[in-house]
């Protein structure tokens, strides 16, 4: 990819992001009421999207070849365990990532 293509790619990501952030304020000006359906989606979508993002991060994991997704499952277990035990976001993320790095570098080589 050339530098120009890189700038276009990042620029497109900036424009798309800003579209998602500014659009509600453009569409629903403060003096009009938000449609009930949109309000409902605003309440239930975040939870669904967090679930989707977990899967999205694992989209390249193959359960039928390589290490069969075992390091990923173990590291997620460690992340979840740390989260339920300490409820320290930073600790859970650091611990899970470290665990995964050790697994893929030393165990599932």
């Amino acid at each position, binding site marked *: 990819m050339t530098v120009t293509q*890189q700038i276009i790619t990042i620029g497109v990501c900036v424009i798309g992001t800003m579209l998602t952030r500014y659009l509600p304020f453009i569409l629903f000006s403060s003096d009009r009421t938000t449609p009930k359906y949109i309000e409902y989606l605003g309440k239930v979508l975040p939870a669904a999207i967090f679930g989707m993002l*977990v899967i999205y991060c694992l989209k390249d994991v193959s359960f039928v070849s390589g290490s069969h997704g075992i390091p990923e499952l173990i590291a997620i277990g460690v992340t979840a365990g740390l*989260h339920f035990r300490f409820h320290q976001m930073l600790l859970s993320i650091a611990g899970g990532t470290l665990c995964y790095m050790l697994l893929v570098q030393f165990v599932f080589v």
Partner: protein
Amino acid sequence: MENTENTVPARSSVRLTALKAAFPHTIPIMAGFLFLGIAYGIYMNVSGFSFVYPMLTALLVYGGSLEFVIVSMLLAPFAPLQAFLMTLMIQARHLFYGISMLDRFKDTGWKKYYLIFGLCDETFSINYTAEIPEGVDKGWFMFFVTLLNQIYWVAGSTLGGIFGSFISFNTEGLGFVMAAMFVVIFLSNWEKEDNHTASLVGLAAAAACRLFFSADDFMIPTMIAILCGLTLLRQPLERGGKVQ
């Protein structure tokens, strides 16, 4: 407000009070953003990019998950339309943060434009949930929460991008930090909700679509499946009064 001479010290004290009130709320984000930002900067660095890339994407895109994906986009063949659609899909949740903030961002003047610009997951969570003390200007409070969070993120990303080249240990697997982050966000949200239907719809829709589509193609079907699922479940979810 009258534009008299004594509004100048009054204004600066309004800002200072708001900054003092806002800062403690951002401390956890400081730790998280510096760590994740550095990890992101290193990830960019080991993927072969100068620190300018993580610095600029942190400044202009300012959205962690998409920024990680941008790394793969930059390493793949040039596909701007796909990048745009991917951006809309990953960032679509901002639409709903915006909808939730329509009322709160009212009467914040020019600051509104920056508040919307910096509306990321973490900033949204604080500005949406924080109880702003009496006597603290809510516009300036939210402005400083947004600004401080972005400073942490840009600083971390830049530092990681600069010092990533000096890192001699094996960084294989560092990209997992993104999965770990979403697992934690998902679990925190799971613990807060009374009804897990929406969380399960998201997980199941994505997992099922990934079974039938390739890793590059499953996101659009997933979003459609989620929208359909939540639309069909609207009556039971709303009737139960369990939607928070």
